[in-house]
């Protein structure tokens, strides 16, 4: 890398949807008439057929806007970057619907009249950092649930302020840990560049602490005292979903398994489990400060390796970057890490549920790797557990038992060889289901793989093993490199110097991320976008679009996925970590300025 890439101010899409009767709409919009534009000789593909555009308007910033029956196309003749040359605005993220009736330009604002409403569109210039702060503020305001950040339901479409207070995710721990990593790097970057006492540094530290403590709380909230990690937890007054295994903490120091379909399936309804290990006060304040007691707290079990992998990475960087003057936090991390690692080792490389059986998706044992599902999982899970052991050695400062198991897994069970087989087994597994292994892939493990390899390669000191793990990381190229996501690319580049990194494409990714994570969908049926029919029959786009013209997704999605219908729920707002994790990782590690 020659030096950090200089990200620039760039135009961002700000949109407001209004009913047609709104007083805010200038009356000129309703009387706007323009000649049908002739775009037949336009030199680039357009989202609608050139003959479909029937009206146009030019805003003061020089952008020319064209209306068609599939939304609005903006052409910026002065755009420095090709990705801003042609921009597409479609329902439901940017328009109430795609039937444009008229356009009207008022200074830098474009007004759009559609069949069912109007839109006010303005391209405002922001820095990437300003965007990160906007997104963070939205997440804190609308998504944060006692520090956990995944997504929230809105009672009114598009109105972020109507987010309900409850709502959980299976992967609250995983998403919150990723968010926490971003905030830790945010803090560390500010500390390095602005000094430890700068207000921006202090506020970033508070955010990083809050997120990391939330993760540690999930690692301690069960009170089982054996390192068991909860997926998430609910306050006593939050509704209980019939989804997964929930345990309610009781006054007698136990927790009882609640009546859900999953609990019935496993025969665990009413089962009691130890819950008397105290939750550290610093962590419990997340709910105690809101007036909740431990009794009545319901935590979710059957925790997966996804959760644990992100928790280990969060602990690793919280330990390195947050604990300088915070012995209490350091101690909490060391203890939580030790407990969890002991649990895994003591249970034969498995996370055990209250019924004495392993959880569904947290298994790293050789026996599992020889089962039909575990055979394909083994290549990633082997990396995970080796990473856990490396992080534990790093955090505890001890080798002993951890090293003994690390060497055993490599020397006896060849856990260093298994990761090299990832794509071969994955392709085989995909083939068994009639899919096209090159494209109809499972993207759900991308972030897990990135974090597992990141932690493992970074902490491994043996050169030969390091190289082997680097080679194994490249077996994930098929999924990781099908999109441009600095959240994957930066960690991979950190530990794998020859990892491909197209900085211009990454800059476009930052520039084209939205300023809001409202889950409003977009129209993918476009004149310039072929629908790709895959071997197994599913559909993808033929080219990867920029994030602002794609549905709002978290990591671990197929960003080439094609939908005939507009997807996205106007009543859901998503976490910002997709952007903030990538941005602050890039800043802290010197990829971008």
């Amino acid at each position: 890398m020659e030096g950090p890439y200089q990200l620039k101010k760039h135009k961002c899409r700000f949109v407001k949807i209004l009913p047609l009767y709104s007083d805010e709409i200038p009356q000129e919009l309703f009387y706007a008439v323009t000649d049908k534009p002739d775009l037949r000789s336009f030199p680039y593909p357009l989202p609608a057929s050139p003959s479909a555009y029937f009206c146009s308007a030019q805003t003061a910033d020089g952008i020319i806007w064209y209306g068609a029956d599939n939304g609005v196309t903006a052409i910026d003749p002065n755009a420095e970057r090709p990705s801003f040359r042609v921009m597409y605005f479609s329902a439901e993220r940017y328009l109430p619907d795609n039937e444009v009736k008229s356009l009207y330009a008022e200074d830098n604002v474009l007004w759009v009249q559609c069949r069912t409403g109007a839109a006010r569109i303005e391209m405002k210039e922001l820095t990437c950092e300003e965007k990160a702060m906007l997104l963070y503020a939205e997440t804190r305001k609308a998504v944060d649930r006692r520090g956990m950040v995944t997504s929230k339901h809105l009672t009114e479409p598009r109105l972020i302020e109507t987010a309900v207070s409850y709502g959980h995710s299976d992967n609250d721990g995983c998403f919150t840990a990723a968010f926490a990593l971003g905030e830790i790097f945010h803090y560390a970057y500010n500390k390095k560049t602005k000094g430890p006492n700068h207000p921006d540094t202090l506020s970033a530290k508070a955010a990083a602490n809050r997120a990391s403590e939330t993760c540690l709380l999930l690692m301690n909230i069960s009170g089982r005292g054996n390192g068991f990690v909860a997926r998430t937890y609910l306050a006593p007054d939050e509704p209980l979903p019939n989804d997964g295994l929930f345990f309610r903490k009781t006054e007698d120091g136990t927790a009882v398994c609640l009546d859900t379909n999953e609990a019935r399936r496993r025969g665990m309804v009413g089962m009691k489990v130890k819950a008397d290990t105290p939750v550290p006060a610093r962590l419990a304040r997340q709910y105690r400060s809101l007036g909740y007691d431990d009794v009545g707290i319901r935590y979710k079990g059957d925790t997966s390796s996804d959760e644990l992998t992100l928790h280990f990475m969060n602990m690793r960087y919280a330990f390195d970057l947050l604990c300088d003057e915070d012995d209490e936090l350091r101690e909490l991390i060391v203890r939580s890490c030790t407990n969890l690692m002991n649990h895994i080792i003591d249970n034969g490389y498995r996370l055990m549920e209250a019924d004495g059986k392993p959880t569904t998706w947290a298994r790293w044992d050789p026996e599992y790797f020889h089962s039909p599902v575990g055979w394909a999982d083994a290549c990633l899970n082997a990396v995970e557990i080796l990473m856990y052991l490396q992080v534990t050695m790093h955090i505890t400062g001890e080798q002993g038992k951890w090293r003994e198991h690390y060497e055993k897994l490599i020397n006896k069970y060849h856990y260093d060889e298994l990761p090299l087989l990832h794509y071969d087994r994955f392709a085989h597994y995909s083939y068994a289901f009639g899919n096209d292994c090159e494209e109809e892939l499972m993207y759900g493990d991308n972030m897990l793989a990135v974090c597992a390899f990141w932690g493992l390669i970074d902490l491994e000191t043996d050169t030969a093993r390091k190289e082997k793990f680097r080679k194994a990381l490249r077996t994930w190229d098929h999924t990781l490199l099908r999109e441009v996501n600095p959240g994957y690319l930066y960690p991979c580049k950190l530990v794998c110097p020859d990892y491909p990194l197209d900085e211009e494409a990454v800059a476009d990714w930052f520039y084209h991320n939205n300023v809001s994570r409202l889950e409003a969908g977009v129209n993918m049926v476009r004149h310039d976008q072929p629908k790709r029919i895959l071997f197994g029959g599913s559909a993808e786009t033929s080219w990867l679009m920029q994030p602002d013209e794609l549905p709002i997704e978290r990591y671990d999605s197929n960003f080439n996925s094609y939908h005939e219908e507009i997807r996205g729920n106007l009543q859901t707002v998503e976490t910002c970590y997709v952007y903030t994790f990538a941005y602050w990782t890039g800043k802290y590690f010197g990829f971008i300025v």
Partner: protein
Amino acid sequence: MENKKNIHLIGNAHLDPVWLWQRMEGQTEVLQTFRSALDRLREYDDFVFTCSSAAYYEWVEKTDPKMFREIVLAVRDGRWIPVGGMWVQADCNIPSGESFARQLLYSQLYFLEKFGRICKTGYHVDSFGHNAMLPQLLKQGGMNQYVMMRPSEKENPTIPQGLFWWESPDGTRVMTYHIPTGYGEHGRAALDRTMKKLREMAQGNDHSMMLFYGVGNHGGGPTRGDVEYLLHHREKSEDLVFSSPDTYFEEVKKTMVDLPVWKTELQHHASGCYSATSLVKTQNRQTENRLYAAEVWDTVASQLVNRVPETARFADAWKKVCFQQFHDILCGCSIVEAYDDVRDAFGYAKTVADETKTNALLQISHEIDTWVEGVSDPVSGDARHNDGGRDFLRPVVVFNSLSVPVTAPVRVPSPSARVYDETHEPVLFSNVRSSASNGSHQDTLFLAQIPPFGYRTYWLGETDDGGVKARSHLKAGKSFMENEAMRVEFDRQTGGITRLLDKKTGVEYCNGRQLGVPMVLRDEKTDTWAHNVFTFDEFIGPMALESMELVEKDGVRAVLRLRFVYEKSYLSCDYILAEGASVLRVKCRALWQEKFTIVKVPFDLGGKEPVFTSQIPDGYLVREPVGTEEPCQKWIDLTVTDGEGKRCGLALLNDCRYSCDCTNTRLSLTVLRNVIFADHYSNRPPADFRYTDEGLSCFEYGILLHGGEASPAALTGEAQRFNIRPDVILAGYHKGGRPQKASFIKIDAPNVLVTALKFSEDGSGSVVLRLYETDGKPKTRISVMSELLNCGFYSDLTANQIKTFRIEPNGRVYDVNFLEGIDKK
């Protein structure tokens, strides 16, 4: 967990429709074999029959509809399993990528129409080698599993036996079964021996295996004796399963076995087959090229004017080509009589192409405004062209059917005194000797520059108006020629190139060596296939130079004619260097009257660190320069580090050859192979043998120099230009709404080549555009713009990826596979 280790019994009949017999006999053989297979199905409830090749099914459908209905029912019952997904079991090295697409398209759509399903398993159990792009080609044809047999373990022990993943350069994988025994075991002893071997392998590999049984080659299929013997064994052994390749793959894909991954081609078995019988190779390339251009212009014309596209005729023509690509035909190892049929079949396809293209081009050119006021006033031809000093320029429209721009000399009958383009800019031209022995004896040759998928109008005048003329930079003498790109000098004693200078890089390629002298080799010890011989190196010596003559020396091009002789044979080579050209063309005509010889044209570059690259179907491949005879497509390249430490290379393009070798720093194109027809390990009892490549052969190769490493994209573009030349229409004068220069489709990436522009087979009016990435670049975004097709879209391509776009009349575009999305409807 324990994986199954069954032996899947695959009842089949290997059917060569042409080999030591002609097609009529092959058809009879198919009818007999299918009858026999249906009888076995009726006699034995568990028996399952597997059969490839859509052509055979179509024969039966046409000649015995009643039997065909029986087959339809058997397929429906899952007891007769069509496999292969191709028209025949094609040779898998010589057909172009587009030919593979057509093999798959027409066959899979046939199977879909007749049986309601496409084939799941690719199947080439007898084909002699398998190109490295085949996994992607198969997958694009709807199949992700493959059965093959050659080369054997003895021929190439490094290829996994049994099951493995085969991956093409783009990353596509197909699960592949390499038959370790034979495709047609029959008789108790053979079955016993094979069962024993396969059981051992199943244990060792930890997965099931397939046993292919049934009398083959000339058809036959499983006998009652064999079926009953296997039934008898099955009573004792639970691991025997009457099965099909489809069922086998269904089982093994569920096993948890880390299979080997093979990432290159599967060679070598019959190394002589890529040069034997040049006739069929030449016909194949010419027909592929002509059908491509004809479909392009049929599509454009049908979009442009009120014209019914000739899709059905093209399908018929392509099926003829597909049939001739059967491995024993295209590899030149059938009996000599078979090649009369081959020539006629290709002739049919070429006639379809030529008629259709000519009609389409005339229709398009008629839309162009070439009207000149006053041109219709005179009443005689002489007056029209020389009307009292009014020299009416004659309009000529030159068409480029490629997706890359073309600059090339084009020839028009009759001489000219001036040539202009559509903007009245002078164009370089010269008058050259025509082939006619009467009239003016001259043609006009001018340098045309035509946009991709487009045309350009040029104006030719009979009288000189004294205007400015375009100037040539060519120089030529009795033994040298030079343009802006290169200088070439020849030895007047040997005809060898003694100086070959790349003027852009300053690299001199000869340095005391002589390049390009045709070399004769002895080839008597092996058979037509060259079984067990993988290197041809029994050199007799160079052909002797008989004469050297400078035929053309200024204007558009210089031509030096060299005539070489050997015994009773000669080879005439016209070295043609055109103004501005980067390729030195060598137009060859050979009259060969020898026995057991090979002719190669070698280029020894010297230097070190050789990298040998060949074009393969829809791709390219780097091979070790170890002297083995290798199949190739339109170009081969050798790049070396020269004495000054510079990387530089020489590529050889060709218009109809498929075989080459590279021995360290010597690159050779094999141009003739002269062995007995269909000589299969025989002891050659006395006869009046016919030899392949006896008589007259015409072919061209081209020499292209480059600095640095080879650019497969640049070479692929040049090779395509070398193969598919511009078409000239003598347009006449007419009014029209089209401009005098146009490009109908623009594709903005230099590393992409279009291989098909046609109408969809479903008659919907949708247009199909197929292209592939030619340079191995990991990511390429292309844009395709066409007002004619009402489309403008982007697409991302990965390295070596093939893409097929279906462009609907409303401009909606689908990114589909070779089956055009028809199978997904």
